[in-house]
């Protein structure tokens, strides 16, 4: 049996009396395209925050490549290859995309604590940053200030920052949030073009996108895993339809 890229066991988190994550057992195989769906308040973002270390779990374990990361701080999980994007843009407004991605490359490379050598001499890191932006189709935006970027470009930059850490597990929290419907497809083209070695878990509300891009779906309701399985199965599941998809279910 191959080890899962990411695995949780009996994960629990309470906010006071509110159980936001209940006994979640979850497995993300290497190279997966996995969607996490569920109604508002189901605890999807909380689950991502637990995985990345923004929140610490009350109980349960998290494993990355078969090694426990439950007690590691957020930045060390990134160093182990676990990256994420944010539902609400969490960017550097007064840096250019090139600077921001170079910063991420420096952090990955361990050069970010060098305070005397000139940054301009780290050619390989700067070129790597530019290449990544170009690959994601925002190379022509590289030298503008992030706050002047169109919203859709900012969403792509969110992904670029995560990729610059060279993850093998990528967690995308509603990557197309706020992007007009006709543009969200472009974002998912970027995502589906990611290297196969990267396991991707994404939260998405648009069912068309979920069924188009996910090979596996987990349905979260009230902090619990309600169902998990391949898209066809999930689409036909009466309980999922009742609780989440409603009457106007995807056909």
């Amino acid at each position: 049996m191959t080890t899962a890229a990411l695995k949780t066991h009996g994960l629990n988190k309470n906010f006071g009396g509110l159980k936001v994550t209940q006994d979640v057992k979850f497995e993300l195989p290497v190279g997966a395209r996995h969607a996490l769906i569920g109604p508002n308040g189901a605890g999807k973002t909380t689950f991502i925050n637990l995985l990345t270390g923004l929140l610490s779990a009350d109980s349960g374990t998290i494993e990355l490549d078969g090694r426990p990361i439950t007690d590691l701080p957020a930045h060390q999980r990134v160093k182990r290859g676990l990256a994420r994007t944010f539902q609400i843009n969490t960017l550097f407004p007064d840096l250019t995309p090139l600077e921001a991605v170079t910063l991420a490359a420096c952090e990955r490379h361990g050069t970010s604590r060098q305070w005397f050598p000139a940054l301009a001499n780290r050619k390989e890191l700067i070129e790597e940053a530019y290449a990544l932006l170009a690959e994601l189709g925002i190379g022509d935006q590289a030298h503008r200030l992030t706050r002047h970027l169109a919203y859709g470009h900012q969403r792509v930059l969110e992904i670029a920052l995560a990729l610059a850490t060279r993850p093998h597990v990528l967690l995308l929290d509603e990557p197309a949030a706020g992007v007009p419907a006709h543009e969200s497809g472009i974002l998912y083209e970027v995502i589906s073009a990611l290297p196969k070695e990267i396991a991707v878990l994404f939260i998405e509300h648009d069912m068309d996108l979920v069924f188009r891009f996910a090979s596996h779906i987990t349905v979260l309701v009230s902090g619990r895993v309600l169902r998990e399985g391949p898209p066809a199965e999930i689409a036909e599941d009466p309980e999922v339809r009742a609780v989440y998809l409603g009457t106007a279910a995807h056909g």
Partner: protein
Amino acid sequence: MTAETQAANAAAVADFRARARWQWYEPIFWLGAIAWYFLFPTYLPLGTQVLCSALFALSLDLILGYGGIVSLGHTTFFGIGAYTAGLLAKYGWGEPITCLLAGGVTAAIAGWICSFVIVRVQGVALLLVTLGINLVLYEIANKAYTITGGADGLQGIVFWKVFGVFDYDIEGRVAYIYTLAVVFLLFLVARRIVYSPFGLALKGMRENWKRMPALGAALRHHGALIFVLSAAIAGLAGALLAESVQFVALDSLGVQRSVDVLTMLIVGGTGVLYGSFVGATVYMVVRDQLADLNPAYWYFWIGLMLVVVVLFTRNGVVGALSDAAAWFQRRGRAQS
């Protein structure tokens, strides 16, 4: 690799190089500091104090303007540097260069100790913690008057000749040149920090510290490192002032001075290196002139200046100047 990507890569690297390059106004600024020596021979002591304050403000700019770490007690390190140099001189070792370095080192050590607390708090809590540390140290220096001279200040200190040759003169010529040379060297160091990989990480912390851990950044390590570097420069500034005035006043540890240096930096502009120099010059010269007019109420005008600058400029005097330059450039382009 295609020619196109090669060109784009070169442009990307050139972008970072261009930021770090010396701008046309920078030599003017330093030539101005040299010109001061010849133009205002009777104002050399004021010039020396402006330089020390500017260096102090620069140290605050590194944590505030670049790292986004606010402090209401930065004079803690300025005072530690000043007292270190002063005490060494008082008790028998008055060699200026070593006293200066000792001031920087003790301040750096103090900064390192404080950093354990500093990196754990943000925002208002950080303001209060830095203020608290400042107050504690002030009262320790006040109480330990047998060593520090308490409220009377540290008197009877004599620094030896600079390099064993140049004696501190009454007009303050040697002090001015010595201070200018040290400040310039430390400015070069600050410039290196700002345009280094760590400098970029600092800007990242300022722009969005919440995102930094998601890039794999150890925020506390970054915070501690810049705090130590900043404390060292603040300590060097304090030691420089002690050497040039041959005296250490208790108010070099006073919260008032922490507020003054913050005011200078805000008036000048944060995160632009020269903001601290412009701010210190404006602040000290205005204060000097106002104190001549009315010694009692000059903070009225300082307060007014602070309010006006914060309300009507984007980023202090330097921000206003660069906005004006950009406006003229646009207008010139529109007309041509």
